[in-house]
């Protein structure tokens, strides 16, 4: 049995929903232990200096130390039952060095002076061993140290402080509300993460960060046993870089969408959404099957975020472009020659896409990345033209720059940091436009909400996306629900068919809580902001089959 199998099997006995697909790295602890303070920053600084000195004395020319405490709480329920409550903690240190112009990395859970010294020495030994296979030495973009600084996710309520009972009560209320409205099955879950990360480097940075993320979600299923059909509708929540205040469901964060029910911005009414989901899942069973053909698509931010993630976020990762992910996720169509040309039309001139790790409430929001670089916003696509990539300290020289974009990330103290996707977001339109007004001008279209099936090729040209909810638009009006809808397009063709983007009042986040990359695979969390957007003449297929 492999390690990942063991983790999965351990999880099965504890409740499959919470752990499937999630690597539970930590040791189970009590909910109270999640609130215990971690190691004092002053003590971390002392230990970090031991590592920096030990590595330097063995010949390292650069060293960074990440002392991390990663806390997770998952609560999952099914109908009237609690399936799983898990609280976990993992604490350790990862040390990365450059010696002989080559990276070396080592990690240990022995966070003591001796453990850290030995770990730093191992990292240097690994770097020296690997340097025999190195073809060109690592060159880091300069980075002046930040001294002793702190950064915290701006939360109002620490979700770890909310009693587990309150969370169970909420989820069971969600389930009950869906069942009362005709659902046959409901799975609901709440995921809470707190990363207490300390970073120190030979550049003179000592950065203490406290990062929070939350994701409430559910899946509601309606079944027609007689006719043999079933349909599900997933939550329209987004995972967020917020505290428990995300579950306040404030009236000002509700957006009445053109299909006549509420979408949610920076706070979420989970019970209301579950009631809607139950109604929708029943309606989906009997909804009209789509006639395939060309349609103008009106894509809600709850849906468009994933399309941005797959067709813009991933292809503009510089390590993919260079071939480092060739054996796994693939490479990219957005090659350096296209960028160098300065006129590669990624999208129509309405399309402005930015990368950033600074937007409040987003999953990627941190003060500094895992190389100690201060986070910022930068353009990826400007007026439709490809202008930049996502790159970190040892990559930016390839782009002729000498400042990292600040998007290095490691998913644990035991993982080595590498380039990961920051938030990648579509800027809202500058002219006043609501989603209802947008739909008024569509003759033959489909309004799509929610995250559905998604698939894209290894260079990010051809994709197919489904959704949670599809509404037919005829002559400017929504005429009813559709099913069996998926659209297929090519990234460049699709973004060039973008004709209208709603204004900032319609802007909201979509999020991906577990985005995988690398071998061994690492998980990261990333948000994608957008307003409702129109794409003209997109190919829609019918996915209904008989078996």
């Amino acid at each position, binding site marked *: 049995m492999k390690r990942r*199998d063991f983790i999965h099997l351990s999880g099965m*006995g504890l409740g499959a929903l919470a752990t499937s697909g999630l690597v539970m790295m930590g*040791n189970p602890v009590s909910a109270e232990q999640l609130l215990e303070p971690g190691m004092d920053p002053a003590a971390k600084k002392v230990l970090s200096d031991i590592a920096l000195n030990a590595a330097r004395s063995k010949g390292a020319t650069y060293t960074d130390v990440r002392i991390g405490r990663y806390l997770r709480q998952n609560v999952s329920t099914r109908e009237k*039952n609690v399936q799983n409550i898990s609280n976990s903690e993992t604490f350790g240190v990862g040390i990365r060095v450059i010696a002989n112009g080559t990276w070396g990395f080592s990690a240990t*859970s022995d966070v003591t002076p001796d453990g850290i010294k030995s770990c730093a020495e191992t990292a240097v030994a690994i770097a020296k061993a690997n340097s025999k296979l190195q*073809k060109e030495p690592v060159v880091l973009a300069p980075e002046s140290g930040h001294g002793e600084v702190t950064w915290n996710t701006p939360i109002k309520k620490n979700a770890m402080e909310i009693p587990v009972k309150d969370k169970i009560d909420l989820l069971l209320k969600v389930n009950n509300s869906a069942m009362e409205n005709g659902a*046959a099955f409901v799975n609901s879950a709440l995921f809470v993460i707190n990363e207490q990360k300390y970073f120190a480097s030979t550049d003179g940075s000592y950065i203490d960060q406290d990062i929070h993320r939350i994701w409430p979600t559910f899946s509601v299923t309606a079944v027609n046993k007689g*006719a043999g059909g079933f349909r599900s509708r997933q939550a329209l929540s987004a995972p967020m870089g917020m505290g428990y205040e995300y579950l306040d469901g404030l009236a000002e964060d509700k957006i009445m969408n053109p299909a006549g029910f509420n979408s949610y911005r920076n706070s979420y009414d989970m019970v209301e959404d579950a009631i809607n989901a139950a109604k929708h899942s029943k309606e989906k069973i009997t909804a009209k099957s789509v006639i395939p053909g060309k349609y103008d698509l009106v894509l809600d931010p709850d849906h468009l975020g994933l399309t941005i993630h797959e067709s813009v976020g991933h292809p503009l990762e510089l390590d993919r472009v260079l*071939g480092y992910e060739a054996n796994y996720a693939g490479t990219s169509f957005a090659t350096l020659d296209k960028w160098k040309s300065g006129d590669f039309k990624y999208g129509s001139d309405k399309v402005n896409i930015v990368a950033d790790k600074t937007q409040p409430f987003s999953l990627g929001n941190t003060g500094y990345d895992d190389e100690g670089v201060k986070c910022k916003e930068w353009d990826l696509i400007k007026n439709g033209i490809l202008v930049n990539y996502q790159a970190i300290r040892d990559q930016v020289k390839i782009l002729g720059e000498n400042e990292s974009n600040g998007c290095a990330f490691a998913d644990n103290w035991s993982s080595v940091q590498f380039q990961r996707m920051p938030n990648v977001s579509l800027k809202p339109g500058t002219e006043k436009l609501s989603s209802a007004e947008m739909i008024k001008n569509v003759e033959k279209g489909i309004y799509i909400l929610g995250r559905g099936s998604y698939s894209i090729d290894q260079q990010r040209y051809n994709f197919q996306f489904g959704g949670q909810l599809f509404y037919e638009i005829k002559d400017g009006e929504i005429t009813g629900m559709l099913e069996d809808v998926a659209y*297929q397009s090519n990234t460049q063709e699709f973004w060039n068919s973008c004709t209208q983007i709603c204004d900032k009042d319609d802007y909201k986040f979509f999020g991906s809580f577990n985005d995988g990359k690398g071998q061994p695979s690492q998980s990261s969390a990333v948000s994608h902001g957008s307003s409702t957007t129109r794409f003209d003449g997109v190919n829609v297929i019918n996915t209904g089959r008989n078996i």
Partner: protein
Amino acid sequence: MAILTKEEAKKIIDKVLSYSKADEMEVSIFGGKTGNIRYARNTVNTSGETNEIRLSVNSVFGKKVGSSSTNELDDASLKKVVARAEEIAMLAPENPEYMPMLGPQVYPETATFSSSTDKITPEFRANLASDSIQVSGGGNLTAAGYLEDFSGFTAMGNSKGQFGYNTSTSVDFSITVRTSDGTGSGYAIRDFNDVNLLNSKEVTSIAMQKAQASANAQAIEPGKYTVILEPTAAGDLLGLLTRGFDARSADEGRSYMSKKGGGTRIGEKLFDERVTIISDPFNTEIPTSPWDGDGLPKQKTTWVENGVVKNLAYSRYWAEKQGVKPLSSAGGRGFGGGGYIFSGGDESIADMIKSTERGVLVTRFWYIRAVDPQTLLFTGLTRDGTFYIENGQIKFPVKNFRFNESPIIMLNNIEAMGKPQRVGGSLIPPMKIRDFTFTSLSDAV
């Protein structure tokens, strides 16, 4: 020191059980060494080795369960982990689906351990990567590959006298070779328990051949084609089918195994009569751990026979609720993963090509996602070597296709099958399938 002997593991488990104050308690220990090396652009990027051991405890009061774990095995840590699990259990809500623990079980030995895999060193990994880079990296080719090896053990025991111990090893190797002009890409992947069965140079040369042969692919119209699926490609789709071999979701009406009007499709002919799917934990080519997630001994099971659904897995909870005997699933990873043996045939891939008037040869599929769970419709793309066949011969490489297809429909459109080989822990034959649905073209290489 990460691998404990059966006796050492039993001694620790018995000690931990002696600390229990709970109604029931189970203890599991997992330990092992995982090593990896990753290379890309003809150079090694990362390599590492992790040794770990973890002892986990589930304590139960009534139907309240608490879990805790530790990686320290001294008496004080063991007492602490028991106390913590009991404390968590006391605070937990009741789990109405909790099943009382099993008593002693008989777990026969499975051949999951290989001492040669256990002896893999960092030098072995570095040499493998270096060989692969040298073979493929000369001239106009670029190699990117990944090797991961594992050697370890699991042991479990409970307060009702159950005890199990198993050692296992695994090695997974995959390589992508691309032409330096970016017009050709080839791939090959292998997995074994015994590293002696892995010929990494041969695997590399397959990826090289595919890279060269797939360069400058031509576009042909998407549509319905006869396809010849190499075992890797067939395995990509057949693995999706076996995930649905679960009685509970079928009984609940939310699976392709659900019968109209209620119940499951056990007894129905769902596939071509040449389709037989079994699992056998004692098969020497794909041995699996001797127990499932419920702690039940795995047994040789026929899931589909001559196209007819014969069995679905029943967890202990669901079996009791339905008044049937529990039946463990096949794989090491619940209903996904490996452990299945698909019936094959006696045609080689060369034979299949010879008898094909017009068709497509597929090396592998990529980014496969569910589109409709009712019909098991999936979408995804071909990748790393797709070729057009005409009048019994491979004519030229073709651009990759997106497919929208259900493995259920596919297993009703079988033209021919070959000898099964190990893919992802299952035994999968190459298959020739008619009317496979490609819905669009991709420019990706």
